């Protein structure tokens, strides 16, 4: 016979201020099968837990109901206490008297009555709980890092340095990401490439890291510790082993008019190319979309000049099938491009550029070798205007969020300009200066005070060209909303940071949730910032939201630690609160009729088909089977099952029914 122990917690005054805890304990104590009902000020404290442990032994309890807060925080605490008291942890339930009752109602008899009702449902439920054993799953100790920007690089190196294997996938021909495009970095103005390229080389040379560039994730199946990932290695049209990286093919390629992605379209590249001189790997790829041979069927100049005969025009894409234990998503971000801002003239006038284009202009390896020269005629601009928040914090443009990095990089841009063009004038239109970060505000002050950058607080309404000059019309809200008009030679827009192209597609392949802006969603905004809602998949860098290099690197290391912690176990333990399809002896096998409606609604692809065969191998029945490793216990299949063949451990139909009946019945 059931012997239930009920422990009513005051939660300091959180519960007892509105609920009469004494009366709750007393009333519940009179119920059938309740062996003990008691109250305590802090049930989660050490003495509170000891109370539970000792009561289990003393009263030989078969079930425990802790009537306290939401199970979100303390269910593991009390389950552990029960286990230590000798009770199977899954025979412990929590009645939520705080969030569901005391916090949302005023003090009074009705509130106490509701509390009693809540506890009663759990007492009835726990009687039907069964002792469950945790599920064990094996772990493949190889991590996959998707994206080879600074976040991916940091994560990969950190994981690799703990001794585990890492496979890095990068869709462009080189790793390095946006950081490789930057000139100098705030707030120290150290050269971006100088601090990045050694780390890129480290990735390529690390014995634990396998690097696949020009490769994309094709599909992801499986679950934490046991992912099966298909990767498409796009054909580089090159035998990488034979190629020495001499670059002769690049210089001889007759097609030289393709906008250079790395230079943000401000330079040209040939069809066979290496994105930038420090690229890793430093081997070219053929851009088949633009290559004359692939378009017209003849040319092959690269093949003719290659001293090692490394060109392979007929090379097919290759599909790699990889066994992966954990995935770090580090696919980065992009910035808003043309047509987003017709009133700012971007895309219409050549001398209106975006922040990344300015980085290339300011970079020593850029199209102007680091001299600030405007794209239209190569002149050095005497008057330059930077517009912060071009799209960000502008719900009318569909982007309500702050892109976070623009205040700082705009200050840096203005500073770099002043350092290179001493007699020039730099103006910045801004909404607010958001410079939270170590040495960040000091950096902005330096731009204002030492480099005399003219900060104007206000928005720009329009930018247009007149007589070869750019007219920037805006407002100075610190001067009583005075209209301001600046005649500029060049305008730089700090356009909003947005999710990278393909982010949505990848999120769907990974079964990871994402927000309305297509940024990947973390499992908890504060306490689980690197986890996703899919176990074993972690986030690093700007794929989550726009962030600067220090933040991206910190998060990348955080994700690496999560992976290392996962790989420190030989097998994983999962809560056994999963769905199960019933099984009976032959000839029934199961009440499941094999309609597989459950399979189509399962959000975790956890439902498989199981065949029952006779001894001679003839299939007599096909029914659904739950993969315990994948099932998250959401219960969708249970609700949908037409023959009531599926049930959820810990939340069976019968248990839920009993809870409802407890509320309907008098006590």
């Amino acid at each position, binding site marked *: 016979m059931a012997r239930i122990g009920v422990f009513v917690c005051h939660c300091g005054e959180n519960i007892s201020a509105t609920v009469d805890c004494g009366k709750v304990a007393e009333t519940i104590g009179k119920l059938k099968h309740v062996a003990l009902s008691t109250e305590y000020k802090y049930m989660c404290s050490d003495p509170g837990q000891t109370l539970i442990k000792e009561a289990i032994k003393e009263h030989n309890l078969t079930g425990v109901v802790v009537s306290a807060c939401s199970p979100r925080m303390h269910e593991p605490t009390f389950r552990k206490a029960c286990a230590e008291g000798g009770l199977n942890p899954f025979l412990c339930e929590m009645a939520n008297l705080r969030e569901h009752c005391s916090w949302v109602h005023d003090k009074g008899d009705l509130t106490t009555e509701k509390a009693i009702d809540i506890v009663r449902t759990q007492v009835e439920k726990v009687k039907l709980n069964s002792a469950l054993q945790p599920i064990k799953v094996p772990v493949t100790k190889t991590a996959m890092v998707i994206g080879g920007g600074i976040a991916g690089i940091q994560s990969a190196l950190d994981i690799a340095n703990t001794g585990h294997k890492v496979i890095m996938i990068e869709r462009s021909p080189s790793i390095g990401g946006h950081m490789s495009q930057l000139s100098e970095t705030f707030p120290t103005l150290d050269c971006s490439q100088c601090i990045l390229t050694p780390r890129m080389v480290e990735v390529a040379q690390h014995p634990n890291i396998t690097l696949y560039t020009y490769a994309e994730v094709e599909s992801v199946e499986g679950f934490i510790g046991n992912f099966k990932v298909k990767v498409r290695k796009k054909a580089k049209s090159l035998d990488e082993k034979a190629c020495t990286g001499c670059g002769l093919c690049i210089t001889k390629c007759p097609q030289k008019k393709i906008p250079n992605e790395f230079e943000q379209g401000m330079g040209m590249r040939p069809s066979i190319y290496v994105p930038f001189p420090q690229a890793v790997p430093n081997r070219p790829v053929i851009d088949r979309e633009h290559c004359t041979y692939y378009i017209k069927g003849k040319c092959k100049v690269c093949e003719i000049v290659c001293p090692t005969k490394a060109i392979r025009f007929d090379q097919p894409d290759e599909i790699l099938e990889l066994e992966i234990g954990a995935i770090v998503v580090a696919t980065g971000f992009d910035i808003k491009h043309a047509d987003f801002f*017709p009133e700012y003239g971007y895309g*219409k006038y050549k001398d209106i550029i975006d922040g990344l284009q300015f980085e290339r202009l300011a970079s020593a390896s850029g199209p102007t070798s680091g001299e600030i020269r405007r794209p239209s005629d190569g002149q050095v601009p005497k008057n330059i205007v930077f517009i912060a928040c071009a799209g960000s914090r502008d719900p009318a443009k569909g982007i309500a969020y702050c892109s976070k990095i623009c205040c700082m990089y705009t200050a840096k841009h203005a500073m770099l300009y002043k350092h290179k063009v001493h007699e020039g004038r730099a103006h910045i239109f801004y909404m607010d200066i958001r410079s939270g970060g170590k040495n960040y505000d000091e950096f902005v002050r330096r731009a204002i005070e030492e480099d005399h950058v003219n900060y104007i607080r206000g928005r720009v309404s329009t930018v247009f*060209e*007149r007589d070869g000059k750019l*007219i920037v019309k805006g407002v100075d809200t610190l001067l009583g909303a005075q209209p301001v008009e600046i005649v500029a030679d060049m305008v730089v827009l700090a356009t909003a940071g947005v999710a990278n192209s393909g982010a949505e597609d990848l999120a769907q392949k990974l079964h990871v949730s994402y927000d309305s802006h297509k940024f990947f969603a973390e499992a908890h905004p504060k306490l689980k910032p690197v986890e996703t809602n899919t176990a074993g998949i972690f986030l690093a860098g700007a794929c989550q939201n726009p962030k600067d290099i220090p933040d991206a690197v910190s998060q990348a290391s955080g994700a690496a630690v999560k992976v290392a912690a996962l790989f420190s176990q030989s097998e994983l333990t999962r809560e056994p609160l999963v769905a199960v399809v019933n099984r009976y002896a032959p000839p029934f096998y199961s009440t499941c009729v094999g309609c597989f409606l459950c399979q189509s609604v399962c959000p975790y692809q956890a439902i498989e088909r199981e065949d029952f065969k006779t001894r001679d191998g003839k299939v007599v029945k096909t029914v659904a089977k739950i993969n315990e490793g994948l099932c998250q216990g959401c219960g969708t299949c249970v609700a949908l099952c037409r023959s009531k063949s599926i049930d959820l451990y810990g939340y069976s139909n019968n248990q839920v029914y009993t809870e409802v009946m407890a509320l309907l019945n008098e006590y």
Partner: protein
Amino acid sequence: MKFGIYPGCSLTGSARDYNESVFALAEAFGLDFEQIPDWNCCGATAAHNLNKELSLALPARILALAEKNSLEEIIVPCAACYSRLVVTQHELKKNPELKNRISEVIEMDYRGTSQILNVIAWIDKYIIPKLDDKIVKPFNYKVACYYGCLLVRPDKVLNYDRPEDPQTMDIVMSKIGATPVDYPYKTECCGAGFSISRTDIVSKLSGKIIEDAEHRGADAIIVACPMCHSNLDMRRPDINKYWKTEYKIPVIFVTQAIGLAIGLPAQKIGLKRHFVEVNIS
């Protein structure tokens, strides 16, 4: 097919030229109009500054009359009337309680089913498809297309063209052979209703709009709003006095420009009614 037309006050008064050109175009393209019977004032700027219910009831009555007369599509050439009608339809659509209240006020059944077209949308839908065969004199001029405020804003309600750098009129003009100049003053304020009370403000604002069009070598400013037209055309002497200039650039309704391109006589499309002489043919 029969459309409803809502002329509003201006098309029967100061913008008779506009009205004549709209009707001339309709006739030339075989399109039939029926004026909404017993139409009333749209409320313009006055009503919605004074009384919200009134500002919705006036346009709602117009729309209800159109519905009663089975006019599924209504063309509203005046940008201000267009704005009031669309805003009313929008407000009453999202608030059924208010819709019932307004129905009570106007003592008429209002469903909100009429399609409201501004003049450019109407041209786009019914004139452009038949235009090519009709053009006899391509409009070979450089033009500055001036949209003003109410044709494209508020963006969320009208959902017509992009609010800051609209294109529809430029596209229409290029279809009749014109070359639209890159014109940043497209949606700058002309002074609107200050036309009556503060001509100095209108002179200042409209002057800038004209100056930039002249500076960019435009042969004409093209408009689709009676208020814009009267500020840029009728107030030209005040503008020239204020800025000490002698701007002569004509201001032409988009319907007049199309009329010229298909060979309609200047008289018929109201070109003789302008204050600034139209030396374009």
